[in-house]
């Protein structure tokens, strides 16, 4: 049986950048025991001889001619910004103090 502890969920939430309350962590940990059991069924038929499919179409790079086409104006690009300064996105501190 697969399971995820409360601490496992907390680690995943950290990786996924989602703050979670104690209540949410415990609830998800309980749900995952059931969900993981259900999805683990894929292992029953996924033999070494079966190729993986990541996409329904054969993917290849698509290029276009290297010509300048109109794009968003700075004003349009910034129109949804939570904060802006001097025609740039203003964001919280990214690096530490030291």
């Amino acid at each position, binding site marked *: 049986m697969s399971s995820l502890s409360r601490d496992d969920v907390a680690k*995943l939430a950290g990786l996924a950048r*989602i703050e979670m309350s104690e209540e949410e962590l415990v609830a998800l940990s309980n749900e995952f025991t059931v969900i993981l059991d259900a999805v*683990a069924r894929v292992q029953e038929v996924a033999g070494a001889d079966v190729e993986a*499919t990541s996409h329904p*179409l054969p993917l290849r790079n698509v290029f276009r001619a290297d010509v300048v086409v109109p794009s968003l104006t700075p004003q*349009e690009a910034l129109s949804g910004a939570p904060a802006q300064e001097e025609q740039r996105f203003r*964001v919280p501190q*990214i690096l530490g103090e030291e």
Partner: protein
Amino acid sequence: MIRSTAAEMAAKLVAGEVTSVALTQAHLDRIASVDTDVHAFLHVDTEGALAQAAAIDAKRAKGEKLSPLAGVPLALKDVMAQKGIPTTCGSKILEGWRPPYDSTVVANLKKNDIVILGKTNMDEFAMGSSTENSAYGPTHNPWDLTRIPGGSGGGSSAALAAFEAPLAIGTDTGGSIRQPAAVTGTVGVKPTYGGVSRFGLVAFSSSLDQAGPCARTVLDAALLHEAIAGHDPKDSTSINAPVPQVVTAAKSGDVKGMKIGVVKELNGDGYQAGVRARFEESLELLAKAGAEIVEVSAPNFEYALAAYYLIAPSECSSNLARFDAMRYGLRVGDVDGASAESVMNLTREVGFGKEVKRRIILGTYALSSGYYDAYYGSAQKVRTLITQDFTSAFAKADVLVSPTCPTTAFKIGEKANDPLAMYLNDIATIPVNMAGIGGMSLPSGLADEDDLPVGFQIMSPVMKDERMYSVGAALEAALLSKWGAPLLDKAPVLGGAK
């Protein structure tokens, strides 16, 4: 007037019996009178719709050549970016966001002069089968307001069934067009993957997502399909080939000599008695219309649901990383000295609902080192097996059929706390997305036990979308002559005395 089909509305517009402004106003009035009960719309663009309609009327008055659906109104699922119009995806994280650009689907709608009435409700980021996961409250099924209208595109299906719009746009990642169509007695089509551009469709699971037409008749769906489909250089997965001749197919509805394969695994145990009865009846009608019914087997379909709930969450955990509170959307906790990481953490905690968080965490786990091969890797192999099952089945039949969903519409709240029970709704629709083929749901009648609509699913091979329209049109015509009137005439009258 609002109960006509889109094709009939278009004919009246051409004949000058009605203007687009009057037609649009009639639908806006209908929305005003019933949408407090149905809650199909998250945003109604009264001004924009009327302005667009007036411009189309002016073009027509000047004698300009217009597209077949010019002047007919439509409801747009809120997952599609429309320039300057709120686009939330049913999420708090995008509340108030107005995209600075149009999705290609919207650009095509505008090019075809189809009037956009507003944005419809949906499960948050299209994750769900009931529209209960919308951060803005659930949509109610016009057949019974205490029941779900399906999901994730429950707003679009409910708008059609409530005669708030004759056409709608949906998106289908695991059944989000077809299952809502089934439970509301409407028509929904998931075209071949790559048939309709994904540019400007807010991504949930990029290898599965596909936009498509929703309507009340097969012909209306075909007309809308041709309006939105086609190659788009802005989507690298868009197929560069002519659009299948779906309108011609829907008009002919000829199934003589066609082989229709019944998928053995998508019927039987777990399917409601009334769903099975309507399915059998539809098969008999198709046989009478000249089709040959054969049985096909797809042994790996039983693993499709499990594979889907690894692939879709994995892709979603990656796609939804873009909601980082930096460039657009919600930002929480941006106080002096707060780090970018803490702002992201707090914003995503507040901005995402329960199901979205559940899937992001599941996807993060399935992709994490040490578990990748066991989960995501194995799911990708199942995807191969499902595609192979389809290939063998299509060697024996021109199209495949099944009930669209195992049950009719359930009560709002009934499955809200049981994610696995909710996921089972999509058991018959998911294989289509895994293989990237086309799928349609159309109404096949009401289940005897609860008088609620039942959907009939038709699946066609890659870029052979016209086949499902031929079969759909044939079945629709046979059912209509059996019933004597459209199924939606049996739905309760909305907007009565409150």
